[in-house]
């Protein structure tokens, strides 16, 4: 496999004190969709902007398509499609005019009708950008990145603030691009997005990679990749966490607002034991669900925090 993006020892320090990125190595293969997953402020945007050649790293090396940014900027820009976080395109121009403008910057742009078609913007082609919905604006932003026929697509938080339908539409666009052997690097703080869309993921926290692999690998890496969640109603006061930890197959216990989360290896052994333990204490179950462990659980396991914390 050929490497599309490679960086070593990336460090970015703002004003000589704030360390946004603290030593990052990445190898992104051509044709894969790679996700940088992490909470807000983890250093995702700084990292992706360094890779996009928009920010110089304080220390570290970046190679994109085998080239460094220094001395190959024009060549690289012709081959990259970049969608920044929150760009507000000119509201007075139409969708078609905006795409025409961005296409004009590339030596060999894609054909506009095809792009409009692919991103389902045909009906809105002659509408002013100011009249578009959030999802349509975001699709247009991605369209301005795709209009240059890129071999790598960079998306910074592409679905933040979008409704579920618009998010799914964007995921389809990314998959379509990947099917044409395109490489995708995206940042997100949505674990479901990373899980469904990305071939590989790096979880970033405080400017460092704390885990890397395919979503399945990361989840399998957890001891106990099933989660049992339950709540109880009890007449004789609170019940200590310790008794749940002693149930068979339980790897860890967390409780939040009266909801218990057990990470277990084999739910079919744990659940009968849980039921009898509840009964033995004269309490009743108010809620019980089981699910596969998710990247969220991986993140909580690694950091003790949730991805999206208030």
């Amino acid at each position, binding site marked *: 496999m050929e490497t599309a993006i490679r960086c070593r020892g990336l460090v970015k320090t703002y004003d000589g004190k704030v360390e946004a990125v603290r030593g990052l190595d990445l190898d992104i293969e051509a044709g894969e969709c790679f996700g940088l997953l992490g909470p807000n402020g983890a250093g995702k945007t700084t990292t992706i902007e360094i890779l*996009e050649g*928009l920010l110089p790293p304080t220390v570290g090396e970046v190679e994109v398509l085998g080239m460094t940014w220094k001395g190959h900027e*024009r060549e690289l*820009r*012709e081959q*990259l499609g*970049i969608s*920044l976080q*929150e*760009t*507000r*395109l*000119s509201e*007075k*121009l139409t969708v078609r*005019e905006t795409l*025409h*403008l*961005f*296409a*004009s*910057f*590339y*030596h*060999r*742009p*894609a*054909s506009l009708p*095809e792009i409009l078609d692919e991103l389902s913007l045909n009906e809105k082609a002659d509408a002013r950008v100011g009249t578009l919905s959030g999802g349509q604006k975001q699709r247009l932003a991605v369209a*301005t990145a795709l209009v*240059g*026929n890129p071999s790598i697509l960079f998306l910074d938080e592409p679905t933040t603030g979008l409704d579920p339908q618009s998010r799914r539409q964007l995921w389809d666009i990314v998959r379509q691009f990947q099917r044409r052997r395109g490489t995708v690097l995206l940042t997100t703080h949505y674990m479901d997005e990373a899980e469904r869309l990305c071939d590989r993921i790096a979880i970033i926290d405080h400017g460092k990679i704390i885990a890397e692999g395919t979503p399945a690998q990361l989840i399998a890496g957890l001891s106990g990749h099933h989660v049992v969640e339950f709540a109880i109603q009890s007449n004789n006061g609170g019940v200590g966490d310790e008794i749940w930890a002693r149930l068979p197959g339980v790897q860890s216990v967390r409780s939040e607002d009266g909801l218990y989360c057990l990470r277990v290896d084999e739910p079919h052994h744990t659940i009968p034991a849980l039921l009898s333990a509840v009964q033995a204490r004269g309490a009743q179950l108010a809620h019980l669900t089981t699910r596969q462990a998710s990247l969220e659980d991986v993140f909580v396991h690694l950091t003790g925090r949730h991805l999206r914390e208030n």
Partner: protein
Amino acid sequence: MAVPEVQIEPEKSKVATVTNGRWAGYWALLGARMKELWREPEVIFWVFAFPLLLALGLGIAFRNKPADITPLAVVNNSHAQQVVDLLERSASKNAIHADVVDEKTAFDKFRLGEYALVVTADDSGLHYRYDPARPESVLARSQVDDALESASGRTDPLKTEATESSEPGARYIDFLIPGLLGMNLMNSGMWGIGFAVVDMRQRKLLKRFIASPMRRTDFLLALGSSRLLLMLIEVALLLGFGVLVFHMKVEGSLLAILLIGALGAVSFGGVGLFTASRAQKIESVSGLINVVMMPMWIFSGVFFSYERFPQIIQPVIRVLPLTALNDALRAIILQGASLSSQWSQLAVMALWGGVSFVLALKWFRWS
């Protein structure tokens, strides 16, 4: 059997990829900029309608009209009728309107400006009450004095003669139109470049542009070109308005006027770009733009001649870019001066534009 092949051809050509030439980006940026401007109602108003309204309003307010009739109060006493009779006999009886009123009314209304002069006649002669700070009062005093003295039989030892002259070219509106044109070129250069650039920076559009293969020089060239195109319209509108509505006479060559206008537009574009080189928010650049423009509104002779300011600050006033632009426009439009006679003004503008453009490029932040 050739038919199916022929049908396939157009299908192929539709999918064929376009190849963009060197200047495709520049033309697309210029086209987009002009469309944006054209679709912004505020721009249309401030750039085109506002200066015309200003010219119309000021042109009407300061139009050359026959001298006003002097309102005069004669204090009612036994000598009042004598004064009125004398005025009736004088040559300027049509230019003076005299009311005979009691002293209190006369003084009250004089204070309010309804009378320009109060005359009190008694045995010893005439007494004038006038205000040396009011031009019309000073004028009324000498006018009424002259009328009364000559009607009483004064003979003037020196014979004088006067010719009336209010030719187009010497009127206030003639002075005003080139000044408004200069001011408009400054306003639209500063706002059209300075504000637009910071707005695009704040919207992260500049950053998005440089994330594409767009050439940065194309972007700046397109901004400058859009200013030149607008300049053409601004010059045509204001001069055309002056000629059609106020019968203004354009003495100099149109080409010279356009060249001066182009230099002015580019020069203020450079100053605008410099003002906007680092600002992150449109609020802060708005303040900066006003700070830069304010002295020129006042000192550069837009609405009145800057000769009125003290001699000591004249050298400073003369090196302001708007002063140079206004002087050059007036010399060419009103006096038919040649472009080469304006070299010092051209040099002032070129220096301001050039130096600020170089500094702007040095400091410019794309994100």
